[in-house]
């Protein structure tokens, strides 16, 4: 049984079918990349899988349990986390507090009113470790809103990691990062392989083909091909629909 099993997933915005009867299986432990042209519906798919937006129909099974109809925070608690294509952080919190909040969410009740949370070293230590992993430990005590764009992307990943997901849905984690930052994030993802199941949406084809165990190609809300990087590279349909287009530009 696959860790994530998506069947007949649908979503329309008016007449536009953004997710069109989509099927997808993600095996435990694999890094499954999803590529596709702009507007193909990749972010919409992540939003549907994570529970941020509703679906018009279909089924999303995670570890055998139907997730459809469950709110986003409950899917996170079940082990499905995500990162956002457009950075979503708590700008008035420090970087450390951003990540510590994610640790807090899975460590006991937050209906505690009296003891200062800033002094909970168990939360801070884990948060610092996550920041260190993505390479911005030196920014721990900076306001998240004041970080550079690339650092915010690193923070975004650290927050997602801190929820300790079994399945991590990453929506273009490399978008807008500098070369060095991107290298670091690719290293982090490589380090996660095997330990965490990853769904990676990414336009950076070098990163995708270097990291992915399997790749699915999403065009107009449908998966037109799934296979190993080699299979995808040689697939004529994919070349026509997507990669060819890339080479043309």
């Amino acid at each position, binding site marked *: 049984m696959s860790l994530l099993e998506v069947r007949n997933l649908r979503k329309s915005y008016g007449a536009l079918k953004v997710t069109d009867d989509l099927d997808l299986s993600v095996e435990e432990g694999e890094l499954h990349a999803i590529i596709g042209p702009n507007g193909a519906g990749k972010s919409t798919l992540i939003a549907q899988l994570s529970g941020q937006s509703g679906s018009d129909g279909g089924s999303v099974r995670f570890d055998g349990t139907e997730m459809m109809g469950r709110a986003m925070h409950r899917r996170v608690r079940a082990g499905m986390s995500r990162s956002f294509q457009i950075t979503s952080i708590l700008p008035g*919190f420090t970087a450390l507090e951003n990540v510590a909040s994610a640790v807090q969410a899975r460590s006991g009740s937050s209906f505690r009113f009296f003891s200062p949370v800033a002094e909970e070293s168990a939360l801070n230590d884990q948060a610092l470790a996550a920041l260190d992993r993505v390479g911005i430990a030196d920014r721990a005590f900076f306001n998240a809103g004041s970080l550079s764009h690339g650092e915010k992307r690193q923070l975004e990943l650290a927050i997602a990691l801190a929820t300790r997901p079994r399945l991590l849905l990453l929506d273009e984690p490399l978008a807008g990062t500098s070369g060095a930052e991107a290298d670091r994030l690719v290293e982090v993802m490589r380090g996660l392989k095997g330990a965490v199941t990853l769904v990676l949406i990414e336009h950076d084809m070098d990163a995708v083909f270097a990291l992915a165990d399997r790749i699915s190609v999403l065009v107009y809300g449908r998966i037109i091909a799934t296979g190993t990087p080699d299979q995808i590279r040689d697939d004529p349909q994919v070349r026509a629909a997507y990669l060819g287009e890339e080479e043309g530009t």
Partner: protein
Amino acid sequence: MRLIPNRAWAATILFTAFAVLPFLAVALDDSYLVVIASRILCYAIAALALDLILGYGGMVSFGHAAYLGIGAYAVAILSRAGITDLGLHMLAAIAAAAVFALVTGAISLRTRGIYFIMITLAFAQMAYFFFVSLSAYGGDDGVTLNARSTLFGQTILEDDTALYYTVLVLLIGLYLLAVAITRSRFGRVLTGARENPVRMQAIGFSPFRYQLTAFIISGCMTAIAGVMLANQTSYVSPAFMNWHRSGELVVMVVFGGIGNLLGAVAGATIALLLEEWLAVLTEHWPLLFGLILVLVVLYSRDGLSGLFRGRR
């Protein structure tokens, strides 16, 4: 430039000033000073309570006067029933406020922004007209209390200074409680949900439960202010929950600086003092007050507390 090194110092100075004020009143032979200061402290509690949800939770309640009224009517209704103990008045006020906040909060929190403001206002107006129609308690005119609440069976609160210190102790206690809450796990979730609710959901929190809990805590604290205000004026009427008054509470919070608790206390103090002084100068004092508010908000986004810190 920082005139006051931190909030703990500022709080110590402010509360010490309040603590010595009755001695000043004796020295000046001005007993009215304690009366007006008691009123200020009651409003400071209410403004503090509002700042907890407005400043930290991003919930602009435009109906918080309803809780002042609930607290005040708890005193009026229980007193008439022969129950005079302050502790019981408090308990009844807190329980009634909690129920009202639970029901209205659960509905209001389905909305955001201007709709949240309007719906909290609408609920407060409903409470207002409920008490207007309560003819057993004077309807529109309200009721005069025959006596103040009793403390451990004693009538010591009849003494204005004793009442004053009781309110001051409550204010300090609730201030410390509010500070603790904002620094706690709960406070972090509350603030995070204000900053970015989607992010909080994406790490596994459902903001609604935390926001509703904060809304209830704030309502209960405001009801405590209402209990003390009824005792201070010895008079209870629907005017306690007039929407003007809800607006005044918001003004106090904005005036003092949103989201630092002590600012709400300072804001209530200065707003009421200005009201006293300007009213002596001219009957058009709201105009002057409005002008001052505009200047403070224009020149310091953090209200008066921002002026102390200098401009950002």
